[in-house]
């Protein structure tokens, strides 16, 4: 595929693209899901001290 004869390297090439497509599709489907209801004060304090 695409000039790569070795089937295992071709498989890796395809899986890279497919897993990226999976990430894109998942991100689009769940774009507005997951909730955003909310209080970080401790984290802020640690940052201030450092």
């Amino acid at each position, binding site marked *: 595929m695409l000039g790569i004869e070795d089937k295992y390297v071709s498989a890796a090439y395809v899986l890279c693209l497919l897993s990226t497509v999976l990430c894109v599709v998942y991100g*689009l489907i769940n774009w507005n899901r997951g909730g955003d209801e909310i209080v*970080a004060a401790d984290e802020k304090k640690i*940052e201030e001290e450092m």
Partner: protein
Amino acid sequence: MLAQTVGITEIIVVLVYMFIVGYLGYLGYRNTKTAADYMVAGRQVHPFVMALSYGATFISTSAIVGFGGVAGMFGMSLLWLTFLNIFVGVFIAFVFLGGPTRRMGHHLKAHTFPELLGKRYESSFIQIFSGLVIFIFIPLYAAAVLIGGCEFIATKFGISYDVALLVFSVIIAAYVIMGGLKGVMYTDALQGSIMFIGMIILLVWSYSAVGGVTNGHTELGEIGKMPSLFGKIGFKGWTSMPEFGWGADAKGNPEAYNLWWIIVSTITLGVGIGVLAQPQLAVRFMTVKSKKELNRAVLIGGIFILIMTGVAFTVGSLSNLFFMKHEVVKGKIVSTTKMAMVVAKQERGINPKNGKDEVPVPCNLIHIDTNNDGDADVNLVARGLDIIKVLDETSGIAGGVKPPGHGIVDIEGVVKVIPLVATAVITDPSTGEKISFATIHDNLASYRDLELEIKPHCSAYIRALVKRGETWFFNTGSIIPTYITAAMPGWFGLLFLLTLLAAAMSTLSSQFHALGTSIGHDVYGKATGNTSQSISITRIGIVVGIIIAVIISHYARGGYIIARATAIFFGLCGAAFLPAFVGGLFFKGVTRAGAKWSIITGSVVSMFWLVFVKDKEARALGICYKLFGKYSMFMGGKMDEAPFGNEQLSTLAVVDPVIIALPISLLVLILVSLATQRPNDEHLKSCFGK
């Protein structure tokens, strides 16, 4: 012009970049003065920013220069790591681990990875032990990132590696100490954007330089069939997986399958799985403001990682085709070195008398001045060279008069006038081609003023020839910098410098943050209960960590150390923390004792494997050699009685610790948890919030 000196333009661009990064950090810091601001600002952070921030932390110079260089040596089989980086490092991490990590971190008021584990299992020991493991080993990973940046600066600007290390370390230390620890996402996102743009340009330019995607891959496959330095360990070409098997092959070669195990166990699985238990990445999930943000970040993160690692590994592989068939170096030969002993394999041990592992290869070298300053800035192995044309038309060479040693030669169907160097023809072990060196070497004075075009005709590894002190060696870490310098226009070199600076700064700041909090908050603060001094210890820890990383960077150059150091840290984190981390997030039945012994077992087995079994690391440390008189317990030496010295077990010396330690660590977690009392329901309720 290949190597370029550091000019006023380079200095101004870097300073402007540093100013913008600093200003963005200040703005972000000023706008989040209170916890409420912090949360509100977080709500307004675009998922693009969050994903790029995570990606910029995940991807460093180690991935681009280090692993890209390994792809230059061993080829596109590294794309399996890209697949794991996307599927495991982004999809699994964000979709399945991100939400639970964030929720449990907030329930337990944990702010560091060791603290999360310690509070989940109600164990001070787990928090302190985990903090110590991170503090001791993260400088190794930080050194890998530093080396990656220094290799590029040294190659691009023609300065020594040690000067590059000094300059780069000062820039990084200033960034970290002046506020890089604030972790402001906008600075990371700026850095991620620069990295993204740089790699896109690199990909498009590289494919167009070799005739397109399919043509490039096909030609790369063809040249990969030539004899190779790595044929003995199973290399079959840059578009093929290495030879798979175990033990010695039919010819009795015990190293015949080593490369497959290096690529699959160390490079792919060690890094690809270990990413899930990276302390500096896990804390990112706790700072995420909502699950929605994680969902959105999956989209951008997947694309970002594909572009960063996929491009680095593909371009690293394609660089072989560029150096073999497309590169033409124009310049004057200022000197030659006859039969230089170039180190093709170099591992440094703590004690040089133990485990020194060098394989010198005799090479004729030519040293070329490409920018007319009288100094050689390109060094090539003369074996396999074809000097195809003399450019100086006024010399009369191209006319009727032929000086001694010149003649007409048919090269690829084209008749040309070239210097004939047929007096000493030797076959190149890496390509099988004939060399042409003796005439130039013997008549250097008559060549010095001639502007020549020289085709290196070599693999990326042979092209990445560098000198340190009096030693010449082929350097994996120099492959990508050499390719950028040779194949890309000058302006891109500057953009790529910023790309690498961005990649290093974003990763190193999070590494040193994890290192500092490990020793200050998790070890000192937890062990003494003295929280007022833990901040001072954190700061001291960061300074000590930077110094250790710089020292390692100075001494550990050579081999494919960047990828190996990264794989050691990722693999160790995977074996030590992954079972307890995932078990703690999803299974209420995992007990304190189960987690404790899993972490101890994973750490101890990993370290045992590195010290006594894994050839390169055991050889470098020299402890196995001191005790047993051999570099690895499973290789030949004084203990040649079975099972030690058995050819069928020798492959174990190249198997990564994570392959052995992670399953054992997981088994211990399950068995000990089954044998010990389940945590009380009240604590589990505080962990899981229900």
